[in-house]
């Protein structure tokens, strides 16, 4: 994944954004006409690739299991606030790693925020915060989100006239469609088999320390991304002048803290939600729907940060996200376990 994350940028995706779920969500929401930022409209083929790769892998391994729990609206809002947190930092946890591996030191403070968020989420889980158990559910529930992505896959191959593609800006920059699709399918499949999740890995490392097998996974990701970054000339170690990065470190920290916290509550980072939706998880499907909505709102309402910094509405949205996570922690807490 580290290798493909860098190579997709070399093949045409924006710098340090070979894989970025929040950027892809914002781009795709724009392409479907859900926001009006003409520079951020492109149906990223990697997105249907991730989900359909996971679907195929889950079927092949006999792991496609339609399931769901409770609190669907809460999961929708969780997905929305995941994208808000990512938009404040300008990138999802995978992009944060890619930025770090390309020498972007502004991502260090965001990494600290993500670890803090995962730690807070873990502490709250240990004290009884729980969204409820999952049950086997009607198979239609598990198929709806994969079907939506089949439709997006068709839109990628045969673009209908209502799908918009930017001719300027970062969305006009993309790897060739079939390379993006193939990479997405491959990454989706291996992520389904390996249960790859940035926040899940951090959670296990916090819980198990050096014994966590995810440490080796992180190392493999980082080493491959660093080697390819150096080999392709993308490595530039600095705090300043980094692609798509701003210098409002407190808000980067808070944005990623929000992402880490919510990810632990709902059982996975934005990428893992896509993969789980491909395994028939209707709860993850609701989070994915929320992520699409979030992708549209952060652009329409001027929430997303840019290299110029974090707009005031972005700061308000980040704080609203923290308030949301606090409310969930208060009202979804099983106090009898303590």
């Amino acid at each position, binding site marked *: 994944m580290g290798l493909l994350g860098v190579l997709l940028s070399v093949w045409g995706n*924006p*710098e*340090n*954004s070979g894989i*970025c779920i929040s*950027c892809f969500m914002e781009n795709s929401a724009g392409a479907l*006409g859900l926001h009006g930022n*003409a*520079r*951020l409209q492109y149906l990223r083929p990697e997105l249907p690739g991730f989900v359909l790769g996971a679907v195929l892998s889950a079927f092949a391994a006999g792991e496609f299991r339609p399931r769901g729990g409770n609190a669907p609206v809460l999961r929708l809002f969780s997905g929305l606030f995941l994208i808000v947190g990512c938009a404040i930092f*300008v*990138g999802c946890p995978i992009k944060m790693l890619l930025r770090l591996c390309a020498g972007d030191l502004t991502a260090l403070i965001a990494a600290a925020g993500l670890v803090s968020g995962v730690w807070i989420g873990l502490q709250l889980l240990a004290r009884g915060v729980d969204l409820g158990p999952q049950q086997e559910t009607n198979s239609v529930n598990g198929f709806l989100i994969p079907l939506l992505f089949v439709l997006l896959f068709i839109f990628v191959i045969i673009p*209908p*006239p*209502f799908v*918009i*593609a930017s*001719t*300027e*800006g*970062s969305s*006009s*920059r993309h790897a060739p469609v079939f390379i993006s699709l193939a990479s997405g399918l491959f990454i989706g499949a291996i992520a389904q088999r390996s249960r790859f999740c940035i926040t899940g890995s951090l959670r296990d490392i916090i819980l198990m320390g050096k014994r966590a097998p995810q440490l080796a996974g992180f190392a493999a990701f980082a080493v491959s991304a660093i080697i390819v970054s150096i080999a392709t000339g993308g490595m530039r170690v600095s705090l*300043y*002048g*980094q*692609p*798509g*990065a*701003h*210098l409002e470190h407190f808000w980067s920290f808070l944005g990623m803290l929000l992402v880490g916290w919510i990810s632990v509550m709902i059982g996975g980072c934005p990428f893992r939600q896509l993969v789980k939706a491909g395994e028939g998880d209707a709860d993850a499907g609701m989070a994915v729907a929320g992520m699409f909505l979030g992708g549209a709102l952060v652009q329409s309402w001027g929430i997303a940060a*840019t*290299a*110029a910094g974090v707009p005031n509405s972005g700061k308000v949205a980040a704080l609203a996200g923290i308030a949301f996570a606090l409310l969930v922690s208060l009202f979804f807490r099983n106090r009898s376990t303590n």
Partner: protein
Amino acid sequence: MTHDNLDRSLWIVLIAVVAATLALSFLPASNQSAETQMTGGRANDQKLLREARILIIQRRYEPVETLIKLGQNQQALLKLEEISRSYPADPHAYILRGELLSAMGAPAEAASSFAQGVKLEGGYVDKNSPLSKRAAISRLVEAELSKPNPGSSPQSRINDIRYLQSRLAGGCE
């Protein structure tokens, strides 16, 4: 799944509806022009807006461009200020001002003006935009960064340079 007649009827209707949906999706529509106008309208609108904007900019700033070509930068700057009073939020005015100030040896003010313009319209640092001023902005940023100890410059000035440097580096917006 086909327990009784109702199940069987629902399946038959479902298959018919799915077949009709697929047929309608892939068959050429008889009234395609009106349909394309409706569904592809936004993309066309955006294209028209881009083209119109270029024409408006050419017409609006023609007197300034003429003065620049004659080498009368001071007069061009005065004319630009006059036009800017009518269109205070036009990013092109900031970019033109940045070019003029850069040519007149005021790099700090030029960087500030370029940064304002790029914040309003990112196309000025795109490689493929017809409005691109990437080369001029790059030159200014490189010249400023090559000065000894650029970090000792006033904070607002260095912030503008770093912002432009980040935008020139690319990435997501």
